[in-house]
């Protein structure tokens, strides 16, 4: 049976009022989160977005009321959805893009990719019909930034065009943090742009990059998946290695936030470590099946197959099905109870039930697990 569990922030009842007071563990979501195939999810701080077929449903703080819910039916199949702090974007299969404002729930089409070209005329002087639109292929939204890539490889910080990839480059995944974006190409390169002051771009220099720039530190290794948190980023290589970089302010890179130091009079103090890791770090989630079952060495740990980043937390899943987490938990976004403020190492996640085909989604301050429950 299909099952959906969430943990984390529900202050605006975006996951329903029944779970409003839940401050530890995971809560099971109602079946509306699961019905249908090919569901798309997006999460803002104060509302959630769920797309199914041609319908998109927003729930949470809408029209300035918490626990509100609105459904919109669009003209074509929904290809993807994204959410910023105050609106959501909906991309249709036909390449059209719509925006829904959470404040007033108004839906409008966004049209910024049209290219003005000189009108061509036939030899008889008639205007030729010419398609000037450039349909949108991929979108991604972060809290303060939205990006889009068109069929013609034009990159937009919505709605401004910032770059054009060469024809042969195929962008297959696009993700967005609070204020930075990552693009994964078909041949496994990762490009980044936006604000890099917290190391989230993976370049040695901490600065703003106006246009996509290849992450040199990852070049040469084929990447197969990417994710962007608030101020951190993740990539998985074709060898199943996990790379994390950016801000570790709450341990979201799985790296220690504090170390112990001794003062001159012998007292031991906790001392904060540097929080910015500008270059991708390989993070070992820790011992996995290979070590335990076959007496293997650490090098035998299972391949990482999925990574999802929230504002300041990270979840990963290995091919064997084991999951790990790290980062900020003050809003129970790791499902560990709000008393535990953060986890600064990769810790194994224990599923309450036996799961298979689990997919992990991270919103800014929440985590959603969708999968099959094998016990039924």
């Amino acid at each position, binding site marked *: 049976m299909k099952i959906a569990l969430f943990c984390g*922030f529900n*202050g*605006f009842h975006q996951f329903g009022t029944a779970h*409003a*007071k839940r*401050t530890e563990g995971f809560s099971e979501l109602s079946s509306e989160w699961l019905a249908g195939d090919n569901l798309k999810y997006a999460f803002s*701080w*104060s509302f959630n977005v769920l797309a199914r077929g041609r319908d998109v449903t927003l729930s949470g*703080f809408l029209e*300035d009321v*918490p626990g509100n819910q609105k459904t919109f039916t669009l003209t074509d199949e929904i290809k993807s959805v994204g959410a910023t702090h105050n609106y959501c974007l909906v991309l249709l299969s036909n390449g059209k893009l719509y925006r829904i404002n959470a*404040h007033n729930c108004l839906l409008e089409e966004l049209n910024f990719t049209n290219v003005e070209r000189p009108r061509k005329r036939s030899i008889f002087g008639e205007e030729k019909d010419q398609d000037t639109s450039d349909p949108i292929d991929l979108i991604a939204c972060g*809290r*303060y930034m939205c990006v889009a890539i068109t069929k013609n490889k034009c990159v937009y910080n919505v709605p401004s065009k910032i770059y054009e990839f060469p024809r042969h480059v195929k962008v297959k995944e696009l993700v967005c943090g*609070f*204020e930075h974006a990552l693009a994964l190409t078909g041949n496994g390169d990762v490009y980044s742009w936006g*604000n890099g*002051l917290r190391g989230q771009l993976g370049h040695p*220099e*901490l*600065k*703003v990059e106006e246009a996509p720039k290849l992450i040199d530190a990852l070049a040469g290794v084929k990447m197969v998946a990417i994710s962007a948190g*608030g*101020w951190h980023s993740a990539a998985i290589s074709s060898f199943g290695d996990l790379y994390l970089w950016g801000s570790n302010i709450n341990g979201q890179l799985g790296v220690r936030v504090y170390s112990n*130091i*001794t*003062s*001159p*009079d012998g*007292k031991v*103090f906790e*001392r*904060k*470590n*540097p*929080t910015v890791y500008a270059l991708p770090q390989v993070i070992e989630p820790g011992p996995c099946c290979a070590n335990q079952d076959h007496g293997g060495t650490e090098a035998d740990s299972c391949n990482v197959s999925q990574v999802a980043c929230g*504002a300041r937390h990270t979840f990963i899943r290995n091919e064997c099905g084991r999951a790990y987490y790290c980062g900020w938990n*003050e*809003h129970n976004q790791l499902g560990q109870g709000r008393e535990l403020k953060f986890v600064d190492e990769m810790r194994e996640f224990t599923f309450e039930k036996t799961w298979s085909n689990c997919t992990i989604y991270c919103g800014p301050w929440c985590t959603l697990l969708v999968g099959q429950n094998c016990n039924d």
Partner: protein
Amino acid sequence: MVSKLVGLLPNLEEAKLLDSTDAEASYVWKLALDVLGTSDATSKDDFEEAFYLVQSLADRTWEQINSGVFSEVPISTRKVYALSCFLRIVFLLLDSDDEKQLEECFRTLDNAVLVGCTTDLYGRGSDFLQETSKFLDEKAGRFNDVHFEVIVPLEYKECECDIDCLDCPTIEAFNADYFKPKKPVLLKNTIKHWPAMQKWRDPNYLLKAAGNRFVPIEIGSNYTTDNWSQEMSKFKEFFVRQFGSEKDSNEIEYLAQHELFDQIPTLKDDIRIPDYCCLGKNEPHEIDIKAWLGPKGTVSPMHQDPKHNVLCQVFGSKKVILASVADSEFLYAHPSKMLENTSELDAENIDFEKYPLAKNAKFYHLKLQEGDALYIPPKWWHFIRSLNKSFSVSFWWE
């Protein structure tokens, strides 16, 4: 009584004015003020929900402030943060007043002041701030567990000084010979009348004034190195680590470039804005006053600041190396945007093979001693190393 603090909170209309476009904030203000304003016992659920949403709003706004460049964050966002911190303190105190909770209150209060913006927040905003710090200080009690020896004055030595050195010049003379031509000068005896010159030597006085408060400290000897970091530390703990022993600390921490006097107004009464700062276009309240407190060995690598600067030495002494803005092209500014005002040179030990152009620059060496004030013109490069436990105050103006 916490109810006194509740009475100093804004009403809903005042709260909504902070940022009328922030619908989530307006919702949280209403919920929280309703719960706090009801004299009858509210339900536990309502209290907890409002408490939680206030904390969530503070966290969200903190993320908002920490995205982008701090100087470009709208004041309205920082005001929303400040008020969510105020409300959080009230909820924390109503919830419990054990030691851990009080510490969280101090931390939240200092975040409101340092990360948020508490200036002109609302009518009774400054009263809330003042009463809350008084209330928390009374609850938290004094520091009877530690006692420090008074820091002994250093003997004033006449030493070589590569720039002009004057005893209390008149404002007219300072203006004509240094301020207008933008030329550095060492000013003697201009701050000897400050109460701070005596009072701050007594660590117990500083602890009483600031011990419970959280201040930003820089860890590691200088900010261009990899193991440098910043954190908020309780003033008392920073002080015990860095001043609590005759031995030098094994790790240098520096309370640097901090607007301590806005945070703790009683300390501001111990200093006076130098008369020279009236030259220029700033009103007294527009002058940036920063505190620099640390052990022996703190280093500010060679860098430049955009404003006029008078650096005053209250106790301890500092080694200073200056270079003219005219020599900037020889000083190898860091290529990255974050460090572009900082030179790659180690001014104390320049590697001329690596940085051959530096030979063309003229460096001015001097020692800043207790009671001295150094005028650094805008964009003049300066390197500073503390030679003892040291407390300086800088005044930046335009």
